[in-house]
């Protein structure tokens, strides 16, 4: 069956009801798309079909006949660098799916828009803070502050004791 994978015409010989996720990983050799739950809840397997993010664990292969499928391997741009810079990736298993869902967002979204668009992508490591920073910019979400323990409180502590 023919479809366009990351901009290239592709012909894969797989059963029509096979999950798109498995076709990508097993038949096309693209392991960047991950399986987290197999029930469409975690978003780790998100890919774009004709530019729209879908959970590839819920899409039968037949559904993408003649359509454009984009996976993390076909993603262009500097989003990965921003994720690394802002702490948007930790264990990394959700990251390809998060990036694919974010790819449909357009440039410089607001923090609120990011949260809405990524509500279907579970991340258990970051608390989403680094992800929001990476996509909406550090001004939209707080970066951590580092301070020495104030001497004042150390002095007061001694005075009390």
């Amino acid at each position, binding site marked *: 069956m023919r479809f366009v994978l990351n901009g290239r015409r592709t012909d894969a010989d797989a059963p029509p009801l096979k999950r798109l996720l498995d076709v990508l990983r097993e038949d096309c050799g693209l392991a960047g798309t*991950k399986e987290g739950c197999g029930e469409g809840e975690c978003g780790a397997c998100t890919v774009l079909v004709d530019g729209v993010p879908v959970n590839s664990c819920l899409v039968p292969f037949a559904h993408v006949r003649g359509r454009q499928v984009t996976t993390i391997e076909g*993603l262009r741009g500097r989003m990965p660098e921003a994720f690394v810079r802002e702490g948007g990736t930790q264990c*990394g*298993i959700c990251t*390809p799916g998060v990036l694919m869902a974010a790819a449909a967002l357009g440039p410089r979204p607001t923090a609120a828009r990011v949260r809405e668009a990524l*509500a279907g992508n579970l991340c258990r490591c970051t608390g989403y803070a680094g992800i929001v920073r990476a996509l909406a910019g550090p001004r939209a979400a707080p970066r951590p502050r580092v301070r020495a323990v104030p001497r004042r409180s150390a002095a007061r502590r001694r005075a009390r004791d």
Partner: protein
Amino acid sequence: MRVVGRSVPRKEGLAKARGAARYVDDLRFPGMLHGRTIRSTIARGELTAVHLDFDRAGFTVVDHHDIPGRNVVALIQDDQPFLVEREVRHAEEAVLLLAHEDREALRAASVRVECCAGAPILDPERSPQAFKELAIEKGDLVRGFAEADVVVEGEYRTGRQEHVYVEPQGVIAVPGHGAMTVYGSLQCPHYVHRALVGLLGLPHDRVRVVQTETGGGFGGKEDYPSIIAGHAALLALKSGRPVKLVYDRLEDMAATTKRHPSIVRHRTGVRRDGRITAMEINVLLDGGAYCTLSPVVLSRGCLHATGPYRCDNVRVRGRVVMTNTPPSGAFRGFGAPQTVFAAEVQVDRVAEAIGLDPVRLRERNALRPGDTMATGQVLGRDASALAVLREAVKRSDFHRKRRAWRGTKRGIGLSLFFHGAGFTGSGEVMLASKASLDLTERGARVLVGSTEMGQGARTTLAQVVSEALEIPIGRVEVAEPDTSRVPDSGPTVASRTCMVVGGLLKACAEEMKSRLGGLSPAAYLRRHGPLRVTRRYEPPPGIVWDDATYRGDAYATYGWGCDVVEVELDPVTYEVRPTRVTAVVEIGRAVNPLMVAGQVEGGTAQGLGYALLEEVVMRDGRMTNAQLTNYMVPTTLDTPPIDVTILESPYRHGPYGAKGVGEMPMSGPGPAVANAVRHLGLDLRSLPITPEKVLECVSSSTEDAPTPTRRH
């Protein structure tokens, strides 16, 4: 400092963000089979028969008769079998293993397990069997209560929590000639190695365990990987082919360990001026069907049960018991989130009882440098409870919001907490961890058994070495954790990796630097040949612990934290929504501030899930909501902005002053949420605070309105 204290980019970050990082399910071996686990169907009883209702051609079938070594998962007690022989102790026990090259055929194979059912023990309060009991005593409780003006009692409960690492458990076992290699998603390769040596009856050097890129652990991949690795190895041994065993989400949630459910009772004596004079605390944990790590979880829980407060008269009693449910196990915080929840809600109730502001009461009693803890440990200069408390109160504008929001649908609450860094008690001494550093042409290679699972160990450890060797971080490689190549650095748990293993590596790097004597690595190698430096853990001077009496220095040092959580109550759905979190931690020194913040932000989100959303529903000893559709973890929309402040107060014996951070952020949100809900006038003392519980509380409190707190 050149590198320490900088947010150096994660070493494997781009590979992860480009989808190039390879996790265990991404690996394939020639001739590889897939594995499947057949489990018991009842919580307690005896296995009587197993019927294979399929054509066995192409299948490998393994039961306990196929085990060449010992049928026990080596951990603390040798009580848990890899495969059931006769006795069934919980409903998810592995009975039989199947392998086949076609996953569809494997899934379609029908197996019937017949058991003779007994009456399961499901209520921990009625369990006749304890895995461990302990007591921590200080001073004289009778005198302490006699000195008190008011005594406050309370019972606090928390439920199971599932880790929900987004990558499920998985391994691949590859058989060799009289040897076995296991690749897997795991935290502690040397734990798995030890379990496999016992199971397979092979010499140590014939078993090899390699950690693959790991998609989250949170404690869930501390002990369970020994079991799944054992199962895959048995199938590989019998079939003579590589076997991949990767759980789907349902199996992972139903069968693997959870956070221990808890019931904690407090009795606190306090004087009118706010000084706490007595604390009597009873901790009960549900350990599930087998011991796993429960005794240590109980220890850590009890050692944190007083909260970060000074008190002259303390008695903590702890008990972890057997029930016929899947075993509880390690989960970030390791007993402390349960007991800190109880302690911190109790402290707010004590403040209410004497009409004192909750911040004032905490300031009055917070542990200070030089104070003596319940175990007799005297705190060092880095005891920062007051500093984190004051910073969080100021940063969040706590007092103003507390006054302004009274009587509205908004609430604000706080929690003050601490966390012992490193293994509990004599654990670090018994582990005697090792770390090595090899000189390479360009710089150095780190050889440790510590694993990267998202927390940033790989990058942070490289930073420590880079700083000490005075070479660019890009010249420090970190070897793959492979038990045939790296020393046992102890498990990657207990907020110990940066402090303990980082400390060893710093010492290695300093020795290497002096051995180089100014030569470049390449020049040294040409002149003197290979150089490896190894260090073994020695406790800091003056650290003493007695396991029998629970007296002494339970941890070399502690991290300190304060969370302020702001919430809104939805008057229609009774959902409590967190709107902002202010998190302040003191962790010695942030080797990599971005990684530290990642731990705080992620741990806080996980703590908010524990507080509000995550409920494991059990029926007949089984999890009935073992899927992400109805076991809910926080999404982007459930997680508010988290404002993180990292305070530094360098710890003398940590590398560049670093203490531990990984677990601590898990302890704060539960009680801070409950205290914010108290601010709304709702007295809820069990987690998670679901809309159902809020509804029930609102209904009963309209009949019996709580007395308002006096203001000062």
